[in-house]
């Protein structure tokens, strides 16, 4: 069954079709949630919430954008809603996320290199999480998920100009944070 047929069945409440449909999306959704929250527990909760939102509202999908862009949109909204809700609550710790979601380590890594990479990862996760949410969302979708500016504008329900400016400012902030820790990043190399 192709994507469209699965969507049509899911619109009628067919949970099995929906689960098949979303199996192709869940890894990206989870990666987005991991980048936005920085920890597994929140990312898993967010994944489930986003899945339920999508299931309940899939009849609102109009086949005008790509399904995956629409899925990004719901997923990101779910993340942002949760982040805004907990704005005044302290962030959960960075424990347990440092090795999650990175490309496999180079087999030739020495233990020292491995430790360095882990430290860099931890720093960058922290940097991304320090970005304001809207900026973080745009940077994650562009620089990690690789969406086009147009798709990001759709996913974030804004215009391309705003997206470009958020991404540009987000990158600028990340560069500044990296420069402020140049001792670490210079060891990491270019």
């Amino acid at each position, binding site marked *: 069954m192709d994507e469209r047929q699965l969507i*049509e*069945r899911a*619109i*009628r*409440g*067919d*949970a*099995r*079709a*929906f*689960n098949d449909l*979303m199996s192709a999306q*869940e*890894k*990206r959704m*989870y*990666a987005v949630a*991991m980048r936005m929250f920085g920890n*597994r527990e929140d990312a*898993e909760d967010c*994944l*489930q919430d986003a*899945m*339920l*939102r999508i*299931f*309940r*509202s899939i*009849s*609102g*999908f*109009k086949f005008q954008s790509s399904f995956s862009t*629409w899925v990004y*949109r*719901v997923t990101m*909204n779910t993340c942002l*809603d949760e982040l805004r809700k907990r704005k005044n609550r302290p962030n959960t710790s960075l424990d347990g996320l440092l090795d*999650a*979601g*990175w*490309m496999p380590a180079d087999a030739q890594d020495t233990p020292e290199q491995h430790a360095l990479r882990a430290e*860099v*990862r931890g720093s*960058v996760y922290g940097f991304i999480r320090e970005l304001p949410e809207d900026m973080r969302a745009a940077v994650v979708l*562009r*620089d*990690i998920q*690789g969406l086009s500016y147009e798709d990001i504008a759709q996913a974030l329900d804004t215009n391309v100009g705003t997206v*470009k400016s958020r991404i*540009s400012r987000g*990158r600028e902030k990340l*560069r*500044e944070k*990296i*420069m402020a820790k*140049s001792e670490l*990043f*210079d060891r*990491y190399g*270019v």
Partner: protein
Amino acid sequence: MNCTQLDQYLDAMLDGTLTADELSSVDDHCQGCAACAEKLKANRQMMRVFAEMAPEMDVPLPAQARWREAVRNEARRPARLNFRLIGGIAAALVVALGATFALKAPAGDDAKMLSVRTEQSADAALSDSRTLDAAPAMEFEAADDALIEADGAAESVNMAEEDEAVQEAEAVEFAAEAANLPVKSVGAPMREIGMVVDDVNRVCDYARDLAQEYEGDIDIQHFDEDGAACANLYIDLPAANAPEFLEAMRHFDHSGAPADAFDVDGETSLLLVLRSE
């Protein structure tokens, strides 16, 4: 280039749109400008970090199981109630019954067989249903369950737009099946509506009570078709009560028919053809 242009070149570098000429002009400038050279280095470091961050991540198995189970539970919930569209007694009855329903909902998550037969053209039904299309896809504030349900119902009406072709095909299929059903001849023109329900007997009991509530007469014939429990419900109602009666019955329908498939206009004779899913 000069220092103020650097950022846009760095963005282009990250986007992979920097030309070779632009790159060499960036390099040239950075040879003689330490501040820009630092930013360029940080940019390259950032690119490397991004490149190592995977756009897809394996979902831990327990988390996969958890969301799939949550979706199955959601699918088993009773047909969504649209509190905006019903009022008074009908609303109270449907809410009370919805609660009972939830306890007895079947465990299967297979595709629901859908069919609907209406006397309206599909086009008319579709254009009417658009007026209900008020709730945009993503406005599920986690406020309270009832509101979410109401939104869901309004959204579920959208399916008519997406599914026109499929629905028409199924309407034809249902009409073909209906042609073989036992039919009671009546004098007055009769409005005939096919419903797919999860428990024919339960819905018949409810319809009997509801018909009494709305001062109507009801005659029920049970039959089986291909092993599926079915029933013909012949109902005569005062014209003024028919819309509310149908509105209440509509909430048992799992066929996904648009709400206005259940509209009546001055009709008092109804034939509801129930089929278990």
